[in-house]
C-alpha cells in the first residue's frame, strides 16, 4: 500500500470539486467555456482518483490497469484500434443504425396510418424489444455470418424498437387544435404529415435516435463475442481479456466511450438544429 498516492488523489478530487463548485455558482456559469470546463475537470478528477487507487493499493494490472497505462497502450496501438473501430463502429454499428432507423421510420408511418396495426404491432414490438440481445446475437451470427453483416443485424434489432415507439408516439403528439386546423383546410394525409405531424414528432424521434446511439455501439460490440473475424472492438476485448492484456481492453473501451459520446453528441447537435423551436432547446430561463 502506498498512502501518498491515495492522499494525493483524494486531495486532487477535493480541489477539483471545490473549483467546480466555484465555477458552477459563478456569474459565467452559462458560458460555453464553463459548460465545457466543469464536466472535464470532474472527469479528470475521477481519473486521478482511479490512478491513485490503482497505484496506492498496488492493484495488479491484470485486474485493473491504471489510466496512465491505458493511455500508453492507446497511443502505442492506434493502428489496431483504428482497424477495430472501422470494423465495429463504421461497418457494424453505423450501418445497422442507419438501416434500423429507416426501417423503424417506415414501419412507424405504416403503423400510423392504421389504428388497427398500431394496436396490433406496438404490444408485439414491446415484447420483441425485451428479447435479450445476448440471446439474439448467436442466432443472428448463425444466420448472417461472422463478418459485420451479423453485427449490423443485431444493431438493427436493437435500435428498431426504441425508434419505432418514439416515432409512433411523436406522430400522435400533435395537439387537437393543431390537427383541427389542418382539418378546416381539408389538408390531405401527406400534407398534414409533412407540414404538421413530422415537425411536431421531431423531438420524440430524436429521443429515440439518441437512445439508439448507445444501443448501437453496445450491440455491435457484444455481437462480436459470438463469432467474428479477427478484428473488431468486441473481438479484441474478449480476446485480450483471455490474454490478460487488460490495458488493451481498456484502450478499446476508451475508444468505445469516445466514439459513443461523439455519436450521441452528433445526434444531439443535429437535434438542436432540427428542433430549435422546442422549449427544451430554447434556454431562456
Amino acid at each position, binding site marked *: 500500500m502506498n498512502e501518498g498516492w491515495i492522499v494525493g488523489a483524494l486531495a486532487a478530487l477535493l480541489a477539483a470539486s471545490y473549483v467546480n463548485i466555484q465555477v458552477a455558482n459563478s456569474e459565467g456559469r452559462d458560458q460555453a467555456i464553463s459548460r465545457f470546463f466543469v464536466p472535464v475537470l470532474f472527469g479528470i478528477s475521477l481519473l486521478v482518483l482511479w490512478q491513485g487507487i490503482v497505484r496506492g493499493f498496488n492493484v495488479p494490472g*491484470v485486474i485493473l490497469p491504471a489510466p496512465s497505462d491505458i493511455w500508453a497502450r492507446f497511443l502505442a496501438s492506434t493502428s489496431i484500434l483504428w482497424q477495430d473501430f472501422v470494423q465495429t463502429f463504421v461497418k457494424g454499428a453505423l450501418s445497422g443504425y442507419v438501416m434500423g432507423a429507416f426501417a423503424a421510420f417506415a414501419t412507424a408511418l405504416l403503423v400510423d396510418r392504421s389504428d388497427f396495426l398500431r394496436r396490433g404491432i406496438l404490444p408485439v414490438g414491446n415484447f420483441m424489444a425485451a428479447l435479450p440481445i445476448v440471446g439474439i446475437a448467436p442466432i443472428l451470427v448463425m444466420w448472417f455470418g461472422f463478418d459485420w453483416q451479423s453485427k449490423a443485424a443485431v444493431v438493427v434489432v436493437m435500435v428498431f424498437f426504441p425508434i419505432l415507439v418514439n416515432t409512433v408516439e411523436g406522430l400522435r403528439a400533435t395537439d387537437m387544435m393543431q390537427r383541427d386546423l389542418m382539418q378546416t383546410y381539408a389538408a390531405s394525409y401527406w400534407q398534414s404529415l409533412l407540414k404538421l405531424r413530422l415537425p411536431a414528432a421531431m423531438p420524440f424521434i430524436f429521443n429515440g435516435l439518441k437512445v439508439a446511439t448507445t444501443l448501437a455501439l453496445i450491440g455491435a460490440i457484444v455481437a462480436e463475442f459470438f463469432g467474428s473475424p479477427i478484428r473488431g472492438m468486441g473481438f479484441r476485448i474478449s*480476446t485480450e481479456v483471455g490474454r490478460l492484456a487488460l490495458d488493451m481492453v481498456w484502450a478499446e473501451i476508451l475508444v468505445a466511450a469516445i466514439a459513443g459520446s461523439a455519436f450521441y453528441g452528433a445526434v444531439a447537435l443535429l437535434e438542436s438544429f432540427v428542433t430549435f423551436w422546442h422549449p427544451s432547446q430554447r434556454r431562456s430561463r
Partner: protein
Amino acid sequence: ADDVTLQLKWVTQAQFAGYYVALDQGFYEEEGLNVTIKPGGPDIAPAQVIAGGGADVVLDWMPSALASREKGLPLVNIAQPFKSSGMMLTCWKDTGIEKPEDLKDKTIGVWFFGNEYPFLSWMSSLGIPTDGSEGGVTVLKQGFNVDPLLQRQADCISTMTYNEYWQVLDAGVTPEELITFKYEDQGVATLEDGIYVMEENLADPEFEDKMVRFVRASMKGWKWAEENSDDAAMIVLDNDETGAQTETHQKRMMGEIAKLTAGSNGALDEADYQRTVDTLLGGGSDPVITKEPEGAWTHQITDKALN
C-alpha cells in the same frame, strides 16, 4: 478442514470428472479439505480469477498459463493430470482438404480467449500466414459451438476429441464426410488442463501442504474416474446446475477423457513441457512467448503427493 477453491476452465462436464469424483467420493474430505469447485465459461479467464483472489488453484492450458506468466502473473504448474492433447481441427472433406498444406485459402474457425496459441504456432510452423495476407488462411473467431461448420460458414473448425467432434456427429454428419487433424499427430500438441497456483504461495508451507493433499486427492479422483467411467459421468451430471448436459454425451466424453489422462500420474513430464515451450517459441513473427520461461512448473507438490 482447510478451504480450497478450484476454478475450472470451462463449464461442468466430464472434462473435469476427476475433481467432481474426488469431491463426491469424499477423497478431498479424507485429506481434510473443503473444496469448492467453480465452473468456468467462455468469458472466464482462470488466470484473472486467481489474480483477483477468487480461487486458490486453477485449471488452465499451458500456452495460456505461460503467456500469463510473461504478462507478469507468476503462475506455476504443480500437476498435470492430462498427458495428451485433445485438440484437433475438423474439416469438411468435400472442400478438398487432405493434408495441412491444403488449409491455405480456407476459412478456419479458431477459439480465442487464450486458446488460440496452439493453432497460431501450428500455422507458423507450416508457414501459413494467419493475418489475412495472400496465401494464408482466413481465421474466424469461432463461437461456443460447432454451428460454423454445420452452416458451412467455415471449412474447418477447432474441436476437442471429447466434445465438439461428437456434436458434429450428433448433428447427423458421418465421420466419412469429415477429415480431422489432431494436434498430437501434427507434432504441435501443447499441454492442456494443468493445475496452476500463484508462485508466491508455494513458499508458504501451509499452502504447500494443502496443495499436496489436493493433488493427491484429485489424482485419486482421476484414477477412479478412469476406472468407473459411466459412474463418473453420472457424478458430473449430478453436479451440473444448468441442467443442460445429457447423459449420453457425458458418458461418451468421459470415455474420451480417460484416453487423455491415461499415462499421467499427475507429475508433469519435462519432455512434454519442453515440447510445449518449443512449439510456442516457434511462433514465427508473433510468438506466444518470447523467451524460455523460468520456474513455470515444479515437482515440489507432486513429489510429496505421489510418494
